[in-house]
């Protein structure tokens, strides 16, 4: 018999007390991990989406900023039109180092001419682009040619086929980008020439032709020169180019950031209330248990146990229960969030990126440490009180 074995046997011998602590640890740990996974997943997703766009300022037509952001993050079809002539005006603004157009399109829904339904499509100008091109250069050794595309992590060529068909136009998928958790993962990137060629072919090959308004783009992506202040340049663009709205990079997806902040607040609120209630409940249960077991602890002291031993045996019991409850709670949370991630995106209206196995392991480890610390804290006072008591007083109860 040793301290750990004694603690384990005591746990097994008191099913009611053990069940309450076990369940509390399971709920709190599970809820904590779910909150962290959802909020972190949404924030990380936004960060990667901003990074993917790679622009310091995104200029869109006035009044269409939320549409463009929704299109990029959630795949909501957007009809945002900006005159192409604005590109020169923006380029002339002091502080602007580069400007590149992007055209946002979407494939048809359930159309026989499209092998991918309602896919978000991004057309870019390879001559000026500074967002997709560096990736292409690094991974494919050049840019995309006519009829070629790269896709988000979930874009693939249908089984048994060599191309993806959009508006009756055959596109060769040359590679896949890293996941972002946003709709960019289900988007396809190709050149403006490919988009125009697709529009031409679609007139005869598609159920419905692809309409691209001449001399129109969806957004202009701006890269600043060294030392330029993003806020000053945005203000200058607004002055120089009427009818546009420059979205500064820190403010990009602001509505979604606010939504995530609100979500974080709500989830932290629920987590705090549940956590505090659980800790109080665990504290009460352990306090009652320690009280009930004063005689048992008195006997242990009479047999030669030190105060430290009595304290340790009570705290270790609580810790083992916390661990036993936290582990299935965390596994359940990780599995639930993973299985229902699409529902989370739709239900909460925010993008979401599930962490890598290594990151998940880190988060689970942090939650285990949190659960252990919480329960140990709740157990510490009653254990300390009983351990300091005269054995004779304990045994009189």
């Amino acid at each position: 018999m040793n301290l750990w074995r004694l603690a384990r046997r005591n746990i097994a011998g008191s099913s009611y007390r053990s069940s309450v602590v076990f369940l509390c640890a399971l709920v709190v740990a599970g809820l904590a991990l779910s909150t962290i996974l959802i909020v972190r997943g949404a924030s990380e997703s936004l960060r990667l989406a901003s990074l993917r766009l790679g622009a310091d300022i995104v200029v869109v037509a006035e009044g269409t900023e939320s549409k463009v952001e929704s299109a990029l993050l959630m795949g909501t079809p957007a009809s945002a039109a900006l005159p192409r002539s604005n590109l020169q005006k923006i380029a002339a603004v002091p502080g602007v180092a580069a400007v590149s157009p992007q055209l946002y399109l979407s494939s048809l829904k359930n159309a026989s001419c499209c092998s991918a339904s309602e896919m978000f499509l991004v057309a870019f100008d390879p001559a000026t682009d500074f967002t997709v091109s560096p990736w292409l250069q690094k991974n494919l050794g050049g840019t995309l040619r006519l009829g070629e595309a790269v896709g988000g992590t979930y874009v693939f060529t249908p089984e048994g086929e060599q191309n993806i068909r959009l508006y009756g136009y055959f596109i060769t998928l040359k590679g896949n980008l890293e996941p972002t958790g946003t709709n960019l993962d289900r988007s396809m990137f190709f050149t403006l020439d490919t988009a125009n060629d697709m529009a031409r072919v679609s007139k005869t090959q598609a159920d419905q032709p692809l309409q691209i308004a001449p001399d129109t783009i969806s957004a202009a992506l701006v890269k600043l020169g060294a030392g330029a202040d993003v806020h000053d340049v945005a203000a200058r663009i607004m002055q120089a180019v009427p009818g546009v709205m420059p979205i500064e990079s820190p403010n990009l997806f602001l509505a979604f950031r606010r939504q995530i902040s609100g979500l974080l607040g709500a989830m932290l609120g629920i987590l705090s209330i549940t956590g505090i209630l659980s800790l109080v409940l665990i504290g009460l249960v352990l306090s009652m248990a320690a009280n009930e077991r004063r005689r048992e602890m008195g006997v242990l002291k009479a047999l030669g146990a030190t105060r430290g031993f009595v304290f340790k045996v009570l705290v270790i019991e609580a810790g083992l229960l916390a661990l036993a409850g936290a582990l299935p709670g965390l596994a359940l949370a990780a599995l639930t969030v993973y299985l229902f991630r699409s529902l989370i995106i739709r239900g909460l209206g925010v993008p979401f990126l599930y962490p890598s196995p290594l990151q998940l392991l880190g988060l689970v480890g942090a939650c285990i440490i949190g659960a252990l610390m919480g329960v140990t804290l709740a157990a510490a006072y009653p254990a300390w009180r009983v351990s300091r008591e005269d054995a004779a007083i304990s045994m009189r109860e």
Partner: protein
Amino acid sequence: MIELRDVSKTYTLDGDQAVEAVRDASLSVSQGEFVIITGRSGSGKTTLLNLVGGMTRPTAGQVLIDGVDLWQLGDREQSRLRSRKFGFIFQFPSLLPSLTVLENVALPAMFGADGSGQEDTRRSQELLELVGLAEKLHAYPRQLSAGQQQRVVVARALLNQPAILLADEPTSDLDEQTEHEIMQLLRDIYRRTAITILLVTHTSQLVSYGSRALKMAAGAIIDESA
């Protein structure tokens, strides 16, 4: 071996009410004595025994074991002395319900034995044989009668081969026949070993089992007869 010098113990009950459980008690017990202390309920017998065993701190006076003042020792030294020097038999059910009979008997080895786990188990088995419970090694306390449980407690008290056995009303909840069996068992152990026994009871008929009898009333040792 055991010496109490003007020991008093006052408990403070709810509020400020003070109860003097033991009052200026002085006592000297030599090795190999079987001392039986009798007295009515509330006379201070259990408190006196707890004072001897270091389970409660005296309000005044000194408790000396082999010349060492118990309350001059730190918690660790006092716990070590308790595990090596004393064996305890309580009047209430004191077995740990989640452990088997064998594990309960071996429990004091966690705190005081120098032997290996195997040796502790072997000795526990021997002691359970001694108290007539060799066939109940793997039973749980709830599966035993009150008398059998008390026998297990006796076996547990002897595991670390203590020099002093402190027994607090060891037969209070038992029928007459079982009471006799337990007392007989204690006398056998006393005769076989050089153990010192201090037993408190409210039953004056039990004094015949001891080598020396004391009486307590209102917290004081009032009578001693050889």
